[in-house]
């Protein structure tokens, strides 16, 4: 069971690094990198649970594949927004984007 705890620890560290990156960076690209690292951490957890607790059940793998797909779409949308933002404003700094202020 040691392997499971090691895997979970790796996943937690990855999630924490991703969260820190997301909150501390102001560049849109860096934020998205943080988000990807957080998702990666979550995927490590998912795979670890599947491999060590329910190796015969396949829904875990399916769930993994779905999250991978969502990450790809995430990236596509995020970079689309980033490109559009850069073209119109010349910057992807989130500090300069205040249009959503209520």
């Amino acid at each position, binding site marked *: 069971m040691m392997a499971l705890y090691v895997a979970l620890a790796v996943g937690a560290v990855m999630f924490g690094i991703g969260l820190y990156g*997301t909150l501390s960076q102001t560049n849109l690209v860096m934020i998205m990198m943080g988000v990807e690292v957080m998702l990666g951490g979550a995927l490590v957890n998912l795979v670890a649970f599947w491999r060590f607790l329910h190796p015969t059940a396949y829904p875990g793998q399916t769930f993994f594949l779905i999250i991978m797909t969502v990450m790809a779409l995430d990236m596509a949308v995020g970079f689309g927004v980033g490109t559009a933002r850069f073209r119109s404003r010349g910057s992807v700094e989130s500090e300069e984007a205040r249009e959503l202020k209520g």
Partner: protein
Amino acid sequence: MTLAALTILGPLAAAALILLVRRGAPALALLGTGTALFGALFTLVRVAGGGRYSATLPGLPDLPLGLVVEPLTAVLAVFVSVVSFFVMVYAVGYTAEEDRVRFFAGMAFFAAAMQALVIAGDWVLLLAAWEVMGFLSFLLIGFYYERPGVGAAATRAFLYTRTADLGLYVAVFVLISRSGTSDISRTLDVGGPAAVAAGLLLLLAAAGKSAQTPLQGWLQGAMAGPTPVSALLHSATLVAAGAILLIRTSPLLPSTVLLVVGTLGGVTALVSGLIAVAEGDLKRLLAASTSSQYGFMLLAVGAGSPIAATVHLIAHAAMKSSLFLGAGVFQRARGSTAFADLRGAGRERRWTFAGFALAGLALAGVPPLAGFFSKDAILAAVFASPYVWLLAPLALAGTFLTAVYVGRALGLLWRGGPGKGPGKEAGEGPGPVAGAGWMGAGLAALAALAATLGLAVGPLAGLLGEEIPEDLLIAGLGIVLALGGLPLGWFVPAGRLLGPLHGPAERGFRFGGGFDGLVARPVMAAAYALDTLDRSIHAVVLGVGRASLAVADASRVADERGIDGLIRALVRGTRDLGGRARTLQSGLVHKELLLAAVGGAVMLAFLAVGVVVGL
């Protein structure tokens, strides 16, 4: 019973219709009083021989209004309707140039109120009718309100009768509280001191309405009204109400009260007889004579013979109304009722004079006219009473004086040359009088009644189931007094006849300050006292008002500073909170991410705590 109600409702409906339609007033009034006459006659036929009908109407709680028809009330109802009908006939002629709507509405309403008073079976209805009559008498006496002095005369009549009405109120209060019912016939067996008090108070009310000494002054002032009003007032309605009250309540009166009633009546018969002898105005003479004749009726009640009073009441109604109607014709012919202007008026209008003289002789008690029988009945009753030593001299003197003033009036009307009249110079023949036909018809009917009512005395007694006192010797004495008084009055001037009494009599024996002293000053003093009371009550009411205003102010301030302040604080707080929440919406992506992360952490902590606690 519906027929009995007709006697009230007929004239009442006529009065209402006259006020609504405002035309055809004489016809409506005649129709109304004719209906009343019809109803009264049929009622009389049905109760003849001792029947008794009564009806109860819804009234005050525990004091239902009632009508009661017995032979006595039925006879009185008939005589009221007969007289009011013929006075109306006369008035059609008399009022040819007056405001007929006001006149006939008042007269018809007046007749209705009198009928209600006559057949009322309970005190409440009787009081109401009594009050309505008092008020209408004020209106009718003040009919010519635009003439000087008329308003004062009406007010005086109203005040006099109102003052005396207090007696009726207190008496009714005593009777109802003693017997626990307002039914008149059941309150009459109250005995003891309550009966004495109630009897004296009723006497006060009756003396006010029937113009007995010392309250007789208003009646002569009431001559300011139109002559048909006087005729109706004096013969069958207002003034008769007092006598009727005493006749109807005579079973109640203990012997001490009867003595007071008889004495008051006798004194009035004497005093107002003297006033009548000295009077210089035909209508005022007749007014004084009315007081005197009602004095005779009180005398009969006091002598213990209300039946004699009833007979005299009826006979007097016919005689006095015809006298007034005759006086009205002379008044229209000469434009005045002062004897100085009326000299010789009788010789000009012989038919009117014949009617007037017939009624006058009847009043004086000349046989075989009506007054002879009724006065004989009263004299016989007086001589049969236990107080003969006190009442008989008064009655005899009153009889004599009646003959004297009748003789005087006839003599003054007959002698002297043709006088002046409105629109014609002295020396011309009698001029035409507007509406003479109607006036003549009314006068003729009533004079005929005055002459022939004597025949009805016997059947009347049978109808009422009582015996009318008779005494041949005393009847002879009455005839002697009448026949002696008439020529004395005709030939001897009043000044020589009365000697030193003439001056006071002419002024109406105003002892005790007259009207001012007896009524006006006490009333004014009471009014001032009440005014002061009123003012203090007003001040208290104002104080209460101010205090409640202050309370209202205080509560308004509390409202503004308390509740309003609270609401404002709440609003301000909400707005502040909103403002603060707005600052969260910075639009900065990383800030919002931070918030999301914190939120997620809180939720996680929640879950972790839940797992640890074991939920």
